[in-house]
C-alpha cells in the first residue's frame, strides 16, 4: 500500500471512497464517495441505470470495484469475498428475492446465524425462531421458502439478513413490486427491525419508503453522486426533479400538430385489463389503453411501474395472465413472438439486445428475415441505411464495437427491417448522452411522417411527451393518468408519481 492510500473517516461505520465499477465499456459507478454513519439510515435513490444495484453489489462484496475502496468500521475491506464481509457484519437483501427455495424458512435463517453470526446450533435455532416470529412468518417456519408469496419472500429476505446479526443492513430495492398496503406493512417491519442493527442503507426507487425510513438521502445519476442531505430538501430540489422527469428538449422536436391527430374508429392496438406476472411477482394488475393508427402513444411511469412488462406482453415474450390484447381487432395475446412479428408488430427491446458477435449488417438482415423476398429485404435495408447512414458506414463492424448511441440506432433499424405497422420503443434514451438521444428522436419523428404507429416507453418524461399524441402513466401495474401531453405535463399528480408526496403537500 502506498503512502497515499485512502483512509477511512472516523465515525463512519461503512464508507466508500472513490468507488468505481466498469462493466466492459460502461462505467456503472463513477468515483462515488459515501459515508454511512453509526446509527443512521441512508437512502440512495436515482433513476434507472444510475448505478444503485451495482453500488450494493460493491458494498457487499459480490462485485469487485475497478477503483476505489470500501471500509467497514475503519477497516479496509475492498475486494474481500462476500462471506468475509458477512462475518464482518454486512448483510444485504436482494432486489429479486433469492431464497433457498427447497429449504424451510427456518433453515434459510439458520444458515446466516450459524455461519455469519457464528453461533452455536441450539442457540441459533432459538434466536432464528424468534426472528421468524417478529417478522410475521411464524406459521411458515417449516414451509419450503420457494412456496411463499412475494411479500412474505421480502419478509424472509429481511429476516434472513437480520439473522446474520449484522451491524450494517443493505436493502436493495426491497419495495419493488408491492402494492400500497403491502408497502405499508414492509415499512412497518423495517422500522421495527431497524432497532436491531446499527446502520441501514436503503437503495430504492419507491420514494414513499425512502421518505418514511431515511435520515439522509443521497441521489445517484449516471453512476455519480448528484446531491445528498435531508430527505425533504433533497426531494424538493429542482435538480433531482429534473433527473427523474427529464430536462427540456429541443423545440424543433416538439410535434407541431400534437393532439390533433384524426382518430379512426378502430384502434390499431387495443389492450384491455391485462395482468401479467413473473412467478409470484405480479407486475401488471389491470392495464388498459389504445393506440390508434398513425399515433405516437407514450407510456410513462416510475421504475417498476410495469412499462417493460407491458411491452413484453404486446410482443409475445411473456403471456398475459388476464385480459386481452388485440391488433386490428384480432386477439394476439398468447401467441408466440415470431408469429406476432409476422403480423406487423416490432419490438425494439429495453437494453437494445443487439447481437454483439454479428456485424451491424447481419443484425439488420436478421431483423428482415420475415421479408417476402430478398429484393424486398434489400429495399428495406436501403431504407434503414438512409435513416441511419452511420449503420451503412459501419455495416461490417461487429455489433459489440459500436458506441451506445450507434447500438441503439442498430436496434431501432433492426426493428424497422420487419417493415412494421406498429413499433414498440422501450427506453431508447437509456444510458445515452442528450445529443445521441436527439438524433434518435429525429429518426422517430421521420418514421412518424411515414405513418408508422408507435408506443414509446420513456423514463425521461419530457422526451416522451414532446413527440406524443397521447400519453398514459403507469403506476404499480395500473394506468394512473391518461390524456394529451399538455394535460399530463401540467398535472400535479405526475410529479408525485415519480418523486412522491412531500409531507407538507396536499
Amino acid at each position: 500500500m502506498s503512502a497515499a492510500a485512502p483512509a477511512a473517516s472516523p465515525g463512519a461505520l461503512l464508507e466508500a471512497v472513490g468507488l468505481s465499477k466498469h462493466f466492459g465499456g460502461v462505467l456503472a459507478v463513477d468515483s462515488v464517495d459515501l459515508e454511512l454513519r453509526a446509527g443512521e439510515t441512508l437512502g440512495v435513490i436515482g433513476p434507472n441505470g444510475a448505478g444503485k444495484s451495482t453500488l450494493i453489489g460493491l458494498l457487499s462484496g459480490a462485485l469487485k470495484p475497478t477503483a476505489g475502496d470500501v471500509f467497514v468500521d475503519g477497516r479496509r475491506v475492498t475486494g474481500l469475498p462476500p462471506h468475509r464481509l458477512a462475518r464482518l457484519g454486512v448483510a444485504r437483501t436482494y432486489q429479486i428475492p433469492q431464497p433457498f427455495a427447497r429449504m424451510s424458512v427456518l433453515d434459510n435463517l439458520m444458515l446466516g446465524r450459524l455461519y455469519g453470526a457464528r453461533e452455536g446450533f441450539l442457540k441459533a435455532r432459538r434466536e432464528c425462531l424468534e426472528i421468524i416470529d417478529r417478522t410475521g412468518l411464524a406459521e411458515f417456519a417449516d414451509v419450503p421458502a420457494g412456496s411463499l408469496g412475494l411479500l412474505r419472500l421480502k419478509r424472509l429476505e429481511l429476516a434472513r439478513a437480520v439473522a446474520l446479526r449484522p451491524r450494517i443492513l443493505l436493502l436493495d430495492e426491497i419495495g419493488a413490486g408491492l402494492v400500497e398496503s403491502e408497502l405499508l406493512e414492509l415499512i412497518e417491519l423495517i422500522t421495527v427491525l431497524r432497532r436491531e442493527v446499527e446502520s441501514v442503507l436503503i437503495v430504492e426507487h419507491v420514494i414513499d419508503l425512502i421518505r418514511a425510513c431515511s435520515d439522509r438521502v443521497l441521489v445517484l445519476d449516471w453512476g455519480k453522486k448528484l446531491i445528498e442531505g435531508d430527505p425533504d430538501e433533497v426531494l424538493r430540489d429542482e435538480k433531482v426533479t429534473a433527473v427523474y422527469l427529464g430536462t427540456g428538449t429541443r423545440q424543433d422536436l416538439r410535434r407541431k400538430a400534437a393532439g390533433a391527430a384524426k382518430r379512426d374508429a378502430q384502434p390499431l392496438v387495443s389492450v384491455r385489463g391485462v395482468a401479467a406476472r413473473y412467478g409470484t411477482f405480479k407486475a401488471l394488475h389491470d392495464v388498459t389503453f389504445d393506440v390508434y393508427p398513425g399515433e405516437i402513444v407514450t407510456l410513462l411511469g416510475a421504475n417498476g411501474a410495469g412499462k417493460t412488462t407491458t411491452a413484453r406482453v404486446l410482443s409475445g415474450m411473456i403471456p398475459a395472465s388476464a385480459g386481452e390484447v388485440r391488433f386490428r381487432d384480432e386477439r394476439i395475446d398468447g401467441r408466440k413472438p415470431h408469429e406476432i412479428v409476422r403480423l406487423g408488430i416490432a419490438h425494439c427491446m429495453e437494453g437494445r439486445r443487439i447481437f454483439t458477435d454479428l456485424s451491424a449488417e447481419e443484425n439488420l438482415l436478421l431483423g428482415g428475415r420475415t421479408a417476402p423476398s430478398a429484393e424486398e429485404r434489400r429495399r428495406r435495408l436501403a431504407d434503414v441505411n438512409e435513416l441511419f447512414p452511420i449503420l451503412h458506414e459501419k455495416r461490417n463492424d461487429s455489433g459489440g464495437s459500436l458506441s451506445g448511441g450507434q447500438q441503439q440506432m442498430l436496434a431501432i433499424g433492426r426493428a424497422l427491417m420487419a417493415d412494421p405497422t406498429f413499433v414498440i420503443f422501450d427506453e431508447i434514451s437509456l444510458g445515452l448522452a442528450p445529443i445521441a438521444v436527439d438524433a434518435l428522436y429525429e429518426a422517430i419523428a421521420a418514421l412518424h411522417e411515414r405513418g408508422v404507429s408507435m408506443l414509446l416507453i420513456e423514463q425521461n418524461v419530457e422526451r416522451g411527451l414532446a413527440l406524443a399524441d397521447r400519453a398514459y402513466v403507469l403506476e404499480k401495474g395500473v394506468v394512473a393518468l391518461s390524456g394529451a401531453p399538455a394535460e399530463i405535463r401540467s398535472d400535479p399528480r405526475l410529479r408525485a408519481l415519480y418523486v412522491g408526496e412531500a409531507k407538507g403537500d396536499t
Partner: protein
Amino acid sequence: MTPPSPSQALGGSLLAAAAVAAALVPSFAGDYVVGNLGFRMLEYAALAQAWNLLAGYGGLVALGSGAFIGIGMYGTAKLTLGAGFPLIPALLVGGALAALFALIVSPALFRLRGLYFVIATLVLAEALQIWMFNWNGLGGSDGLFMTNAAPSPSERYYLALAIVAATTLLLAIILRTRLGISLRAIRDNEDAAAQMGLWTFRTKLWAFMIMAFVMGVIGGLQADYLGKIEPGGAFSLQWTVDIVTIAIIGGMGTLWGPLVGSLFVIWLGERLANHPETHVAITGAILILVIRFAPYGIWGLLIRLKDEASGRRRRSRLA
C-alpha cells in the same frame, strides 16, 4: 441438532425396520441371493447414497466415482495381501485413501463451476485409470489376485448392509446439522449462501470427502467379491453410469431414493440376466423418461401418489 418431527420419526423407524428386515435375509436365503444379488443391491445402495450426498443435496454432479472406488479397491487389496491387515481396518484405510485423493484434487476442482466441474471429474477418473493401466507398481494391466482368505458371502452381505445403513444414518444426521444446511444452501443458491457468511469451499470439501470415503470402502469390499482386480474394472466408467442411473431413477435429494433405486435397477438386471445389453438399454430409456416426466424419481412418484391418495396436496417438497 434439530430434533426430528413426527413424520421424520416415522420415516426413520421405517428405515430402521428395513434395515432389520434386510439383516434377516441371510437366515433363509441361499448363497446366491445373499452373496451376489443382495450384496450388489446393498453395495450399490451405499454408493448411490454417497453420491446422493454431493449431487442430490449439494447440487454438484461428480461423474468420476470410478476414481474413488478404484483407489479403495487397490488400497484394501494391497493392505490385506501385502501387509496382512484384517479386513475391516483395511477397508477403512482404503476409504481414507480415497478421501485423501479427494482432498488433494479439490482446491483445483472446486474452482470450476457447473458443467466444467462435471467434465473435470470425468476426465480425472479416466486419467487415473490410464495411469493405473500403465504403472506397474500395482500390477499394471495384469492386476492383482486376491489370494488371501475371502470373507463368506454372508459376511460380505452384512458388511455391505452395515455400510449402507451407516451411510444413510450419516446422511440423516448431517442433514440436521449445519453441514446439511450449508450443503443444501449451496445447491439452492450458491451466491446467496456466500453472502450469508458461508465459506462454500469447506462445505463442498466435506461432502466430497465423505462421498469418496464411502465409495472407497465399498471398493475395498468389491475386491473380495471379485477375487481379482485390474484397472479396467476398478476404475471403470461403468461405476458412474450405474450409480447415476440408480440415483436418478430412485430419486435424488431424498434418503429413500438411492435405496429404492438400487433395489429396482438390480432387480431389473436379474430379470433380464440373460440379456444384459437389453437390460442396460432399457435402463437408459427409463432414465430418460424419469428425467422428463418424474424428476424426483420413483420415490418422488410414490410420495406423490401417497399424497394424492390421502387427499393432501403438498405444494412443494422440502428437500
